[in-house]
């Protein structure tokens, strides 16, 4: 299985390569990618440096152009595709059918992957993208159980990539408008979820209120560490019960599923975190490299070393991890 690692900057990219990434994915510094954060991502010049570094290391570079092109601004997405093609990248990760159609017609030899934002969860959808745009790989949304992933892998016309570690999206990616509804900034169009510009941290007595665009997402007392106000991970009232009605702050960690994923024929495992710094990238990539190497050496003897989980736990949201939808009871 290929280890696909995030990089939001050149230092992060260096660390990802040094720590054992097989492929690194990056985005341009604008709203053409789904991690459009201030001060992150790559100008065309930096992307060219990234391409030469990755290729000098004998690894692959993917460019994510995985937001939906805004009406009247299609040229920005076209330009991103052209720039990536000029860099000789190993794949483009796309979500928008118009952008895919453009990439396929303008650069017929370019390798295309379907982004997780494309929301393809079944064989018929994958076949559609394969037939019309020649995609060779698809990243699966984090909504299928392990059994469903196994069944889909057996039928899929293209290689599948699944998420291994990182912030847990509990909604089908590409089909979640919660953040857009509250902030007006959309993951699909602007590449942002719960954008920092909409976040307010309000100290309250000994505790802290966290808000998004004025909406109270959570209220922490002095004993709790205030988490980032992501809408799906706040505490809300439902029929008089106050709880994490959607999900607790937690990260996905599928180290324990690696043998099953490999046996199912999953082609690649993706780590989330282009918004994270080099320290995160280095430690997390290193753990996954060790795990994949151990699996390769001895598939039947593979077990998750406690120190791997300890390390990932440190970097997890809310310092806890979950198998998410892969695990049926979670659903």
């Amino acid at each position: 299985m290929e280890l696909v690692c995030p990089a939001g900057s050149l230092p992060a990219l260096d660390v990802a390569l040094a720590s054992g990434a097989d492929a690194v994915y990056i985005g341009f510094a604008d709203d053409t990618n789904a991690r459009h954060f201030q001060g992150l991502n790559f100008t065309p010049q930096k992307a060219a440096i990234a391409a030469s570094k990755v290729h000098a290391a004998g690894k692959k570079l993917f460019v994510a152009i995985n937001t939906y092109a805004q009406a009247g601004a299609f040229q920005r997405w076209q330009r991103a595709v052209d720039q990536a093609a000029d860099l000789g990248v190993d794949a483009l990760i796309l979500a928008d059918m118009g952008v895919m159609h453009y990439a396929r017609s303008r650069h017929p030899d370019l390798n295309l992957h379907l982004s997780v934002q494309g929301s393809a969860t079944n064989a018929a959808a994958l076949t559609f993208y394969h037939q019309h745009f020649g995609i060779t790989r698809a990243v699966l949304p984090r909504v299928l159980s392990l059994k469903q992933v196994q069944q889909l892998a057996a039928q899929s016309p293209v290689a599948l990539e699944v998420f291994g570690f990182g912030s847990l999206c509990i909604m089908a990616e590409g089909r979640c408008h919660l953040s857009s509804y509250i902030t007006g900034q959309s993951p699909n169009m602007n590449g942002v979820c719960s954008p920092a510009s909409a976040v307010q941290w309000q100290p309250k007595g000994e505790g802290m209120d966290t808000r998004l665009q004025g909406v109270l997402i959570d209220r922490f007392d002095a004993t709790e560490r205030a988490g980032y106000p992501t809408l799906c991970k706040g505490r809300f009232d439902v029929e008089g019960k106050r709880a994490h009605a959607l999900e607790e702050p937690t990260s996905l960690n599928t180290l324990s599923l690696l043998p099953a994923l490999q046996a199912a024929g999953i082609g690649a495992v993706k780590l989330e975190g282009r918004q994270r710094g080099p320290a995160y990238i280095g430690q997390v990539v290193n753990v996954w490299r060790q795990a994949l190497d151990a699996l390769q050496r001895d598939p039947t003897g593979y077990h998750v070393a406690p120190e791997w989980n300890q390390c990932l736990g440190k970097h997890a949201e809310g310092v806890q991890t979950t198998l998410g939808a892969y695990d049926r009871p979670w659903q």
Partner: protein
Amino acid sequence: MKLSLGPIQYFWSHKDVLEFYARMIETPVNTLYLGEVVCGKRRELSPIQWIDLARQLASSCGKEIILSTMTLIESGADLKGVKRLCDNEGLLVEANDIAAIHYLSEKKLPFVAGPAINIYNAQSLQFLMSQGLKRWVVPVELGQQQLRAALTPLKVKPEIEVLAWGRLPLAYSARCFTARHHGVKKDDCAFVCQQYPAGLQLKSQESQSLFTLNGIATLSGMPVNLLNHHASLTDTGVSHARISPEWEQTEIVIETFYNALRGSSTASLAGGTDGYWRGQPGIDLIARE
């Protein structure tokens, strides 16, 4: 501009569904969408029963009848259900996942692209029109300006449908939030969502109405209400204003929209949001006049 009635988003009993449509055929909506769009476990009506009901209505009530497919397809059974609806032989289908578009375009059948199909620009729209897209139900977050910009480059435009009243479908998940609220697993849900024919209200700790939990779907807390915008909807090229079924009030809403569109009444519908249409956060309330 015509009026359409979107698919029922909630889990209502077979009896309630039949009674609802018996009432709806008496209303002045032009189009009825039928089918389960949220959860594959909601089988009060099977795909075949939905097709039968749709055929029966199509032959008797003089309205346009369209079958809607599921939005999030997780299992082989879900996918079979989608295929069954697409193979209905005769009725137009609203595709809510690319799977349905795949089946319909293979058979060279025209289709309606539902609100969860991500079309945000003229290029995607044009591609899907080449595959049979006849009507575009616009993604909930597209406002007037963006819709106009998406349509401007097109020489031939599809029919355009906008959700004009009802709770906005905002997100879909593997997890059933209604089951979670009841402390049961999705596999043992005992269809608790049927206890909430209007969904389950989720509020902030300051009692602000944010979302409506509806099984695996999350809807807006308040209904969108574009009654006051009917002139700008028409101007933008919208051919169908969609009303989303709610447990209460649906007939009043239809009646009010119908009268407003004919210019025979200036009655208003209280409350709701119109932020998305105005290019603002969707939750933004209609400004007081």
